[in-house]
């Protein structure tokens, strides 16, 4: 879209230069020419990531007013604020590819772009805030750390900032669960119940298995992705299992065990029908999350209009 209209010869040269940059593990910047597929893939991925930050505020915001201590309330408020900030970085990164925040919102609200399906599950107890921090942010970090080396510069730089904050979040989630697990019996039960509910959805956050993920090869060739879905999922499981032991909580998978030959934890089969159902709109909160988002955005329209009108008026007056 933002590209020139090069001759066929010019196009070959541009492509070669683009591929050389990728091959050299250097960064593509907004001013650089890039193939349209690369651009579209990045827009889709960054937008989905940005939307996930914005929608992802909801399940946690659900517990801010009810947080059981002031310290926890402050930490949770700061976390939800970070998510809004991540959304901003990411929409800004997407804008460098020639698509505006307003357009992306429109695509989110009309269901033409997605957000991470994990946020279509409800936060039913305070322990869910812990489970989201530990498991969901844990999975997010596993996904995102390699993105800090993504071939597209603005995205990679946004991810570096985001990953720093996410690792705080994961530690805070762990800390919440640790306190619950070592607290009263009711608190322990709350923690275990939350982990039981969030474990499998967290594993699904890495996307479908490699043999059902047709775009992975291209994304890896472009340096957008560095590992396959299954590789990342395995990294995550290997990270989480020992942490669960420290927490004193079990993971709801009887087939989970150390495999000394592979040097990894084996785990049971994932219910991919649930994954596709939730992606397709059949999660417990799909409707609710999007409705909440659209209602908030719609209710704020007059505020945005007022800000625009004031800016226009103010400009005029200064000019006059």
């Amino acid at each position, binding site marked *: 879209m933002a590209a020139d209209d090069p001759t066929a010869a010019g196009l070959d040269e541009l492509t070669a230069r683009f591929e050389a940059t990728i091959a050299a593990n250097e960064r593509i910047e907004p001013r650089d020419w890039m193939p349209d597929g690369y651009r579209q893939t990045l827009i889709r991925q960054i937008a989905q990531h940005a939307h996930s930050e914005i929608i992802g505020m909801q399940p946690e915001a659900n517990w801010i007013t009810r947080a059981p201590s*002031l310290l926890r309330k402050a930490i949770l*408020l700061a976390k939800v604020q970070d998510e809004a900030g991540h959304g901003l970085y990411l929409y800004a990164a997407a804008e460098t590819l020639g698509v505006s925040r307003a357009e992306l919102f429109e695509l989110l609200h009309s269901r033409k772009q997605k957000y991470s399906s994990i946020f279509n599950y409800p936060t039913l107890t305070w322990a869910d805030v812990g489970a989201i921090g530990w498991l969901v942010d844990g999975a997010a970090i596993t996904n995102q750390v390699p993105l800090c080396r993504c071939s597209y510069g603005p995205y990679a730089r946004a991810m570096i900032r985001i990953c720093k904050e996410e690792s705080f979040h994961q530690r805070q989630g762990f800390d919440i669960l640790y306190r619950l697990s070592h607290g009263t019996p009711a608190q322990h039960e709350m923690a275990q119940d939350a982990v039981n509910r969030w474990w499998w959805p967290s594993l699904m956050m890495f996307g479908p298995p490699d043999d059902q993920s047709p775009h992975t090869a291209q994304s890896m060739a472009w340096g957008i992705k560095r590992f396959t879905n299954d590789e990342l999922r395995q990294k995550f499981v290997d990270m989480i299992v020992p942490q669960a032991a420290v927490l004193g909580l079990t993971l709801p998978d009887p087939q989970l065990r150390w495999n000394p030959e592979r040097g990894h934890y084996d785990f049971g089969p994932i219910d991919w029908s649930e994954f596709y159902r939730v992606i397709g709109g059949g999660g417990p909160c799909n409707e609710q999350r999007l409705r909440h988002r659209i209602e908030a955005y719609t209710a*704020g329209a007059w505020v945005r209009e007022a800000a625009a009108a*004031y800016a226009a008026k103010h400009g005029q007056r200064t000019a006059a």
Partner: protein
Amino acid sequence: MTTDPLLFTYTLRLGDDALILAQRLSEWASRAPEIEEDIALTNIALDLLGQARVLLDYAGKVEGAGRDEDDLAYLRTEPEFLNVHLVEQENGDFAHTIARQLFFSTYQLALYEELISSKDDVLAGVAAKGVKEAAYHRDHAQQWTLRLGDGTEESHRRMQAAVDRFWPFTPELFESDEVTRALAARGIGVDPSVLRPRWEQAIDDVLREATLRKPELIWASYGGRRGVHTECFGYLLAEMQYLHRLHPDASW
């Protein structure tokens, strides 16, 4: 048990104002009109919550009965909260939230500017840090008051309605009584009545620039400083305290 009951009361009042306004503002999370405002409102809530934590912690120490910040936030009943009515009022639309913040932060900034020279180190410390925070909160609310007041016809109407709605809750900010007078005399606290002229001037200026009409005062709401609140407050407390109270023997 209480070593200095007047200081305890005074500190609770400041702490409760900050705590309850933080609670109201945090209801906005994920609901703001734009992402920047989600960040800004959360930021203000965080600042206020930070102030509240220091103040409630200190109140507990002054009281000397072993209550910590959470005991004071979660285990007091409605008549034991000493915040002004303004901060407990429901968020309403964005204009209402901005009007409430403008009134409160303009007051709090003036208060902290005085409290900075308190002989009480903790209060002086809260004020020293808080004066920068309150200045930012006030600026944020002022800018939005201008944009909304002098924006569209609809935003003007909504902003005026918000200013009118919360106007009767502003005189309570400046209510002086034996507690404030005694602590002011001891060089520890501020008698809020002295802040009023500065507040009036600042608010007059903003309203004028925002093309808003200064409301007439038909009535004024009082009682928060004595633990008498408005009907909406009980709902706020139930939501805030329920989980904590449900697990009386837990730590979090």
